């Protein structure tokens, strides 16, 4: 510990605050990450199966979703966050704090993730889908046992990419009072000029990303044949 205090002197005083912010960041990443993963996966699958020639082709709904994703992706996150405050109040009861950030974080992540899932699932050879249909499997079995199962390496890869961007937006969410490492960095690093605290936050974030990336790479290696 004393070594850390030597290179980051302000840590001694602020470590309690830092831990609290770290916990908030984890909370945001975990909860909005899981929700965004499931919702994004759902929409990504929907895009692929409703496309022309898809398992449950629905060109109208496909076009609607496709456009909606394009529009939502083009709104900068910091503006989206402010825009979604009333929605957040309606859904989770508050528009601020860690709880108030979930709606915006999920909303900001899903379109990006769904689009990437669509790309990954589209890479599954159409012939394999056709073969599964010929074997007498229905759409739901084909989605789970073929599309998703065959795409695990690709899904892992885009999940990692999305996760890094989610870390980015949780830091932005900190700026409007969600707490977390972003908030910590702005308060102490920017407003109070504690340079060492900036470095500490950067180091922590790099560590989180490195660990997850490593985990992702293991999954990809184990599932690519």
């Amino acid at each position, binding site marked *: 510990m004393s070594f850390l205090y030597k290179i980051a002197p302000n840590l001694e005083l602020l470590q309690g605050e830092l831990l609290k912010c770290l916990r908030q960041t984890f909370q945001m990443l975990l909860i909005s990450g899981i929700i965004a993963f499931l919702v994004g996966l759902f929409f990504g699958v929907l895009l692929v199966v409703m496309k022309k020639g898809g398992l449950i082709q629905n060109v109208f709904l496909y076009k609607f979703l496709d456009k909606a994703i394009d529009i939502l992706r083009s709104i900068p996150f910091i503006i989206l966050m402010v825009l979604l405050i009333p929605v957040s109040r309606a859904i989770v009861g508050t528009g601020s704090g860690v709880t108030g950030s979930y709606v915006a974080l999920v909303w900001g992540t899903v379109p990006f993730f769904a689009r990437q899932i669509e790309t990954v699932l589209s890479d599954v050879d159409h012939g394999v889908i056709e073969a599964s*249909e010929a074997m007498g499997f229905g759409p739901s079995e084909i989605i789970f046992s073929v599309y998703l199962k065959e795409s695990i390496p690709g899904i892992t890869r885009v999940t990692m990419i999305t996760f890094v961007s989610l870390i980015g937006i949780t830091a932005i969410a900190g700026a409007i009072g969600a707490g977390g490492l972003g908030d910590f960095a702005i308060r102490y690093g920017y407003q109070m000029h504690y340079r060492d605290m900036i470095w500490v936050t950067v180091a922590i974030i790099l560590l989180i990303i490195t660990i997850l990336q490593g985990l992702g790479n293991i999954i990809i290696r184990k599932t690519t044949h």
Partner: protein
Amino acid sequence: MIQLEQVSKSFCAGDKEIHAVIEVSLDIKAGEIFGIIGFSGAGKSTLVRCINLLERPTAGKVLIDGIDLMGLPEARLRKERRKIGMIFQHFNLLRSRTVYQNIAFPLRKSKLSKAEKHKKIISLLELVGLTDKMEAYPSQLSGGQKQRVAIARALANDPKVLLCDEATSALDPQTTKSILNLLKKVNNELGITIVIITHEMAVVKDICDRVSIMELGRVVEEGDTAEVFAHPKERLTKDFMDTASNINKIYELLEEKHELTQLKPGEKLVLLTYSGGNAGESVISHLAEKFHVQANIIFGNVDILKGKPIGKLVVILSGDSENLMKGMQYIRGRNVQMEVIRE
């Protein structure tokens, strides 16, 4: 076993309507190997997909073992599909699963117990000769091995019918041979009706009992393979036959004005086609004995189709014009087809 009645399939491409299959009727009998041959774009792949309704025909009827597939609700149709195996040009194996798991895949909905499924998979692996590869992933296999896995997978639910969509088109000739032998074995030992879609005459020649020739969505000729091969009626059929024998070399030689094809006045260059026995050779010796017509063989080719020889001879006939006329009449009377290529 498989009856198609006036099946048609059209697609809309933009504002244009494409008729891929036009009023095709087929009656494929249980236990036979039936070939459908045509150049790419003839509609044969669409037609085979109409058999298991991967493509729903726009008109007509599809009966499998007496069941009208088009009248079935989705769930029933899926059940019926399990009785129709299908293999493809590009194998379509699941990359994330081992050989064993690929064969197990169609058994997910089967009522067999775990032990029974295992036994079934092992016996299928033995049938296709890949027992030592069961833990391998498709990426570790050669094309021929992948197709063997695909065949095992297609047979997992004990189908009555096996549809093969250009199943050997991505394979080299030797591997094609071994896959065709496996299909013959499947047909012989398990009594499964096989439908083969191909653009290679050699495939049809090798294993099909009967064949349909398709062009522009229609079946233009149909019949017993040996019969169609020996006496093709349509131009297209002849073209296909030529691709499978070296007889079309004669046209190349003619093009090159090769000295073999140089005719003296009064000589005729003819193509003789005969089936069974040594009809061709005896005709040639009779020509010399009875009519004093010399038949100079430029080249010949004998194919064995389902045990029956189909011979083709390109010969130059020479003699005085009266004898030549009589000789040619004699040939026509001997169940030998004669086509005058040049005179």
